[in-house]
């Protein structure tokens, strides 16, 4: 059962001026983080239910909370997956999406079934250093998506055979 009240309460607790300004003791900061993480866990279920209800498709949605460091172990190896983009703004937006993957060639289709230009690039050395590379994705899939106002788009991704090996462009010092 999805439930937003856990996150709502955690957000309520984090309204304290110490949480806003970062002047709390470390163990209190840790506690705020724990409460917020637990709140988001329950919201993931809520969002999954909402997406399934709105689209009429029942799927096991995967939430990747570390995309900023190119970490999402549950999709990196998949041959086929979908990317759902929900736009909370009241106007349509174009966004660039970066997904960690291990393949080197993918086909991508937009909600109308049309092919979408995409790029595979290696994860940067900086990102590898941050995540102390523990077997995480080696590449990123980058594409531009359009998402309608207050709505969502689903893009489909399929891995092609890795016949062509990606070569990093020669560094320019």
């Amino acid at each position: 059962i999805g439930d937003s009240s856990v996150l709502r309460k955690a957000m309520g607790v984090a309204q304290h001026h110490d949480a806003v300004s970062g002047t709390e003791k470390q163990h209190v900061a840790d506690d705020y983080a724990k409460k917020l993480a637990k709140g988001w866990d329950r919201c993931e279920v809520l969002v999954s239910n909402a997406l399934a209800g709105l689209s009429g498709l029942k799927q096991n949605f995967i939430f990747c909370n570390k995309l900023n460091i190119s970490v999402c172990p549950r999709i990196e190896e998949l041959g086929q997956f979908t990317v759902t983009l929900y736009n909370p703004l009241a106007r349509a937006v174009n966004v660039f999406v970066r997904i960690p993957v291990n393949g080197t060639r993918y086909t991508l289709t937009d909600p109308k079934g049309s092919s979408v230009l995409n790029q595979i690039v290696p994860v940067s050395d900086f990102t590898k250093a941050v995540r102390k590379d523990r077997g995480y994705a080696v590449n990123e899939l980058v594409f531009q998506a359009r998402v309608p106002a207050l709505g969502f788009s689903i893009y489909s991704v399929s891995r092609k055979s890795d016949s062509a090996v990606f070569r990093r462009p020669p560094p320019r010092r």
Partner: protein
Amino acid sequence: KGALKIENEYIRVLFDTNTGLISKIDNLHKNLSLPVTQSFYWYSASTGNSESGQPSGAYIFRPKGEAPFPMSKKVQTYTVQTDLFQEVYQNFSSWCSQTVRLYKNQKFVELEWTVGPIPVGDNIGKEVISRFDTPLKTDGIFYTDSNGREILARRRDYRPTWNLSQTEPVAGNYYPVNSRIYMKDGKIQLTVLTDRSQGGSSIKDGSLELMVHRRLLYDDNRGVGEPLSEPGYDGNGLIVRGKHFIFLETVDDSAELHRLQAQAEYMAPWTIMAEGAGTPYSSH
């Protein structure tokens, strides 16, 4: 062989051949050009001095001197250029790096910085800033926002409601930056959008700076009772990664760009994955 550069339909960013730092930004549509040097610096945190025993801490920002230390005078770079985006990777030190990114058709430059863990083995607390230096004549005026609503003009060493005797030339000019900071002359405006609240200032004319990370060794005696030194997941110190979005525009046209982009950033789309082929879908 010539200066490293990245460009799209709207923006061109040039890099200094010797230092590897950003050296110039051009707005190709408006024919605007501004020499901009962007780099990272750190202030040495005060532990108190003869004028005041106040150390820098969780509540108080108080650098030891007015001049921050450059993270690096020269950075190693490499570039990745594709049909969708162009990037230049800059390595400032073992604990500071940045990706300068231009996506296709985007009207701003994206800087993705990664800072930390801040080393404190030398027993010096450090407060790290990203600074943009330009020749803009700003007469001590810069602008910061309050949650993107009211933009307030800030004047260096000045308060509108009392006669200020400035005792802290750096900290006394720092202001909260909830989502943006900018400076302008009569023609050009340089705007920096942030992805989180930070402290920021313009310590010299034509210069903007934002504090991106800090790690301190002493409590500031304001109640928290411990130094601000977050351990991170492995106990070695926190690593932070964030973004700054840079707009070079005319003064008249800047607001329309930075307000719309700030909305898009604040309410960025959620990305949710699912296994399997799925069915194409777009809601209305």
